[in-house]
């Protein structure tokens, strides 16, 4: 009997175009947009090379600066293309946006002229500071009269440039794209509420004629509810797996290595969202099905936004720190956060707290749904 019920339920769910659109097509389209738009996002943080800058003035400082700046390289690419310009030329190019900034060496202290306020300008300022500081260093050493002339000359030619840091995160992937795809997977799972909603619709005699008919069959309600739940989980989890597979291998998004855990989170999330959808269907009896879908869709979008999906990462992080319980209760955030941790953390111990929340919420809503649906007689139809 369970087989009969599940078989037909799967058929019903698979033929429903609206369900398939929101849980399969929409996430794939959004994923494509994200992939197209966000794939270079992290490069905004990377220091650009061959940035055009200029130096004004012809003196010892301009020569020194030129020498220092020319030496700066990363991956054999010079950081800057330096031009020696007259004050007017430099000013003109700066206004036109053709150079990132220029150093005026004719005054003391030296000045940096900029027209924008970006990372490039910050680095230019930092370099200028360094130059000034080194000059101060020599002055101090000279004044101290403790350093022999020869030693001082040696220092002037080449300052010791020892490196004092090692980056422990050298090989880690900080990809924002991966984070955004974690939120997208969470959003996809979020749309699973529609499966629960549809189940509630078809199970309850006070919501549909089909529900009425089912209430009058010799099958216990528990069996019907159970078979519908199984069918919904099977169909929806498969859809989620397809979406994740397309993201990973189609769109080439790195989601980390912890696949068993990723699949577990998706599974728990799918069950949770179906239960939530059922809960929604059962408490909003008066609203029509399409009204409920509309409301749910809006809520999922809002929760996704709070989970950082729409460039709102700062809000997400703020909530996680200041309203941690709300962060966990926002199921989209709970799911995407767990996926992000699986992707990024070296030690995945912290995800077990999130998993516990997921399991807890699943059980809570399973029980609530059971209590709500146990009822078989209605005060009105």
């Amino acid at each position, binding site marked *: *009997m369970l087989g*009969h*019920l599940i078989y*037909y339920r799967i*058929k*019903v*769910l*698979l*033929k*429903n175009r609206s369900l398939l659109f929101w849980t399969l097509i929409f996430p794939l389209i959004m994923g494509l947009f994200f992939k197209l738009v966000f794939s270079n996002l992290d490069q905004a943080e990377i220091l650009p090379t061959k940035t055009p800058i200029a130096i004004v003035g012809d003196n010892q400082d301009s020569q020194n600066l030129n020498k220092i700046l020319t030496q700066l390289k990363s991956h054999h690419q010079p950081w800057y293309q330096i031009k020696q310009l007259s004050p007017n030329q430099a000013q003109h190019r700066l206004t036109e946006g053709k150079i990132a900034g220029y150093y005026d060496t004719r005054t003391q202290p030296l000045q940096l002229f900029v027209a924008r306020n970006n990372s490039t300008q910050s680095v230019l300022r930092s370099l200028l500071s360094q130059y000034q500081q080194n000059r101060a260093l020599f002055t101090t050493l000279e004044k101290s009269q403790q350093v022999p002339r020869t030693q001082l000359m040696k220092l002037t030619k080449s300052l010791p440039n020892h490196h004092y840091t090692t980056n422990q995160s050298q090989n880690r992937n900080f990809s924002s794209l991966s984070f955004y795809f974690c939120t997208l997977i969470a959003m996809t799972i979020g749309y699973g509420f529609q499966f629960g909603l549809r189940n509630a619709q*078809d199970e309850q*005699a006070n919501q*549909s*004629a*089909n529900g*009425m*008919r*089912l*209430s*009058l*069959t*010799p*099958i*216990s309600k528990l069996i019907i509810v159970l078979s519908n739940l199984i069918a919904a989980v099977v169909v929806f989890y498969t859809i989620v797996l397809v979406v994740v597979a397309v993201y990973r291998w189609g769109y080439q998004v790195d989601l980390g290595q912890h696949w068993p855990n990723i699949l577990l989170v998706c599974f728990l999330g799918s069950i949770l969202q179906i239960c939530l959808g059922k809960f929604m269907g059962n408490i909003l009896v008066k609203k029509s099905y399409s009204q409920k879908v509309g409301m749910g869709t809006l809520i999922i979008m809002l929760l996704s936004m709070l989970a950082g999906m729409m460039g709102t990462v700062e809000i997400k992080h703020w909530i996680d720190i200041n309203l941690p319980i709300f962060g966990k209760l926002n199921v989209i955030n709970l799911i995407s956060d767990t996926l992000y941790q699986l992707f990024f953390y070296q030690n995945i111990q912290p995800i077990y707290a999130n998993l516990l929340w997921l399991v807890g919420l699943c059980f809570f809503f399973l029980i609530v749904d059971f209590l709500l649906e146990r009822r*078989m*007689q*209605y*005060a*009105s*139809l």
Partner: protein
Amino acid sequence: MIIDVQNLVKRYDKLTALNHVDLQVQPGEILGLLGPNGSGKSTMINCILALLQYDRGDIKVFDQPMTANSYALKQRIGIIPQEIAVFEELTVQENISYYCGLYVHDRQELKVKVQQAIELVGLEDFIKFYPKQLSGGLARRLNIACGIAHQPELIFFDEPTVAVDPQSRNHILQSIKQLNQQGATIVYTTHYMEEAEFLCKRIVILDHGQVIAQGTPTELKDMVKANEKIILEVPLLTAAQQQVLQQLPAIQHIDYQNQSLTVTSKDLEQTLLPLLECLKQQKIVYANIHTQQISLNDVFLTITGRQLRD
């Protein structure tokens, strides 16, 4: 007794939908539940089926109390709800097979019963169609097939012919008769009195949640004292002439409106010839004479003072 309802009361907040109603259904009969919209027909059925909670009363089906968990009883019952209760995502055949499969576990038997149901409602040519592709009448037939495929002993039809074309309606009514002949007991709610007269052996008339009359169609019509009407087209009839006609034997009532004379009589045979004789004597010109049977609508009209379809 197939159904025995005693003293059933159902209230929605302030509205009393069923007010101390009794109802009995005998094996093998087609019982018509007749009444205008909102008279409590559907509420009655939903209470009998234990879908609705009720405030008072006893309901027994197949001599056993009916509850939400009476699965053995539900096995023997079929229901055709007013709304078309099928899945848009399944084809005609799949829908019937799905619902029938909830009752019938043997695969071979299931196949046979589904086929029989399709034949009974005449949907052989549409088995691969989706409900959306069916016309109103065909969709109604599918609705019926889903409810009767498991060949239940007791079937509830809740207004199965609403918004149906005449051809499908005839088909549906014939199918119901056929089901009854095969041994099913049928409870049929409608507000079309012609259907009730055509189908039902016994009729219960509900109004404002109360049974206002019940019996065979003949018994009900007998409740109305007048039996038959003679209707004539009379271009001109004076008040004096009407007085004369009133004196004829067995005549109950005379009504002259819009050149149409309606004579209501207790006994047609006693009235007809004297009436024609009288018309001839009075030199009253007439044409297009015909008689009309009393309908259930007249019964309802007589009891409540309202038309059934109001």
